[in-house]
């Protein structure tokens, strides 16, 4: 029963949809909706990032940079130039896609974690530019962002945003599942298994890795635009190196190569700081400790580890790899 529900292809998407519909009945007030919206936006980024980390076996330490480019493109074009938010969002996503392609194309031909280093550099450069170009971005003080307009309606309030972000998340997960279960996905998994073997069998591994990287960057950009319009205000700290680390952590905590793991990771790590504010002083220590302990005791992440446990209890055959 649980096994079937855990299978992303048959029941996963439906289960997620049901979950998104059910959550509002459990949330007592706007504050919780706010947390839910932020978790959803993070989850959209993580679904893309998980394709990259879990399936292409590459790590990005600069995804907040892409998120930031999307967010600031939306903010600047709508606030300063009066663009329609959706047009600004589309342009931001296109720019990010092109940038990601230009960076990844030469680098993903190399072996090892060079992408991590390149994305680290790119992400930090973006955050420094955003901090310094105060005339355009407002600098460290941040800038106001006009509300999102869809079909002539202004989107405002946590509850409406909840449904919008929920729909966005479903679309991203659907997209990700389609990629995983397509020939591209199979090619990617072969890359994760043995890159050399994949290449020898004629798979252009670099091309697929670039593709996934570009998709994950575009998802981050779109999520960034959402985040900017949602909060109505954006500062450089939203696009810092730490945000990148946080995003990677969400993916790894939830479970690499598990789309729903990425969603769970995003939700947990968005809620966690809210809980830890009770321990304000110790927040960072506890956060760091949780990271270390999860990685030591559950290196595959929460969802893959738990689902393997459940299958053992159900007496089912345990498969080696979670997809």
């Amino acid at each position: 029963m649980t096994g079937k529900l855990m299978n992303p292809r048959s029941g996963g998407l439906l289960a997620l949809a049901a979950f998104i519909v059910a959550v509002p009945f459990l949330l007592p007030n706007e504050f919780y909706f706010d947390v839910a919206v932020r978790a959803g936006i993070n989850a959209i980024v993580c679904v893309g990032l998980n394709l990259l980390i879990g399936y292409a076996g590459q790590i990005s330490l600069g995804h907040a940079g892409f998120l930031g480019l999307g967010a600031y493109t939306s903010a600047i074009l709508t606030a300063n130039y009066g663009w329609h938010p959706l047009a600004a969002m589309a342009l931001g996503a296109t720019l990010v896609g092109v940038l990601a392609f230009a960076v990844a194309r030469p680098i993903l031909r190399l072996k090892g974690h060079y992408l991590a280093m390149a994305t680290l550099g790119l992400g930090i450069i973006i955050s420094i530019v955003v901090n310094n170009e105060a005339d355009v971005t407002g600098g460290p003080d941040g800038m106001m962002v006009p509300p999102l307009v869809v079909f002539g309606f202004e989107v405002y309030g946590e509850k409406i945003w909840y449904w919008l972000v929920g729909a966005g998340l479903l679309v991203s997960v659907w997209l990700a599942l389609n990629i995983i279960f397509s020939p591209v996905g199979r090619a990617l998994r072969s890359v994760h298994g043995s890159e050399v073997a994949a290449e020898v069998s004629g798979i252009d591994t670099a091309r697929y890795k670039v593709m996934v990287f570009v998709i994950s960057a575009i998802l981050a950009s779109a999520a960034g635009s959402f985040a900017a319009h949602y909060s109505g205000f954006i500062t450089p700290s939203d696009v810092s190196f730490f945000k990148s680390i946080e995003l990677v952590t969400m993916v790894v905590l939830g479970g690499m190569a598990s789309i729903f793991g990425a969603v769970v990771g995003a939700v947990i790590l968005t809620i966690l700081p809210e809980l830890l504010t009770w321990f304000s002083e110790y927040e960072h220590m506890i956060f760091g400790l949780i990271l270390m302990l999860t990685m030591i005791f559950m290196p595959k992440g929460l969802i893959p580890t738990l689902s393997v446990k459940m299958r053992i209890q159900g007496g089912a055959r345990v498969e080696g790899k979670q997809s």
Partner: protein
Amino acid sequence: MFSEFLQFLISGVTVGATYALVALGFSIIYNSSNVINFAQGEFVMLGGMSTVFLLSAGFPLPLAILCAIAITVVIGLLLEKLAIEPAREGSVVTLIIITIGASIFLRGATQIAIDKEFHSLPAFSGEEPIMIGGASMLPQSLWIVGGAFVMVLLMWFFFDHMKLGKAMLAMSYNRLAARLVGINVRMVLTLSFVQAALLGAIGGILVAPMSVTYYEVGIMLGLKGFCAAILGGLGRGWGAVLGGLIVGVAEAMGAGYISSDYKDAIAFIIILLVLFFMPSGLLGKRSTERV
């Protein structure tokens, strides 16, 4: 004109020497474990902050420095024993996340155990600048460059002339073969963290009188040291030193002649250029993958 150039060069080499120590730490740990230790910058921070703390507790400076180095080394040792070793079978990504967790933890712990304020150490031998060709240099610069130089020589001697050092290098060439000839993998891993912590602590203490030290000082220092390590060729000792100096000088020149706002970006622009045009770094070898 020349004096200005000289001035930038001096400050570049001074900062570069610190980056070199951090980069060496990255390379040593990378060689023994393939892990990029994101807590490397925190070793630098711990060295400086522990000294500040011990000084305020009434220790004389030399004793405070020695104890601070000891504290940092013990923390490096604990980090390896408690967090890295239990997860040794995990993937490289897992181990990287552990070091990131450790860096956040160490910053959080420092901010509670000591404080969140900015501190500076007294200069080791006065504040009277030395004039060279129209440029001025603080005596502390000599301490930093000299101290880094001594550490680099010690490391060179260790890796090139001592059996233990050669064993550590052997690990980085071929792990399995190293095990087969009886090299203790665990010991090598532990030792690499101890050395990295030592280098970081010394860098942090030497640089603290010239710049401020606070609980987040290790973030940028660590990341730039990482850039330096890649520039020189990750895992290459002399490459790390060269990379550190180049990043330091480029930063000082960039800040002086181009834009001081973008000073912090220079290291990262270099890293992108290196990855595009010579991915194995200046002194790195082109590697082929074994199947």
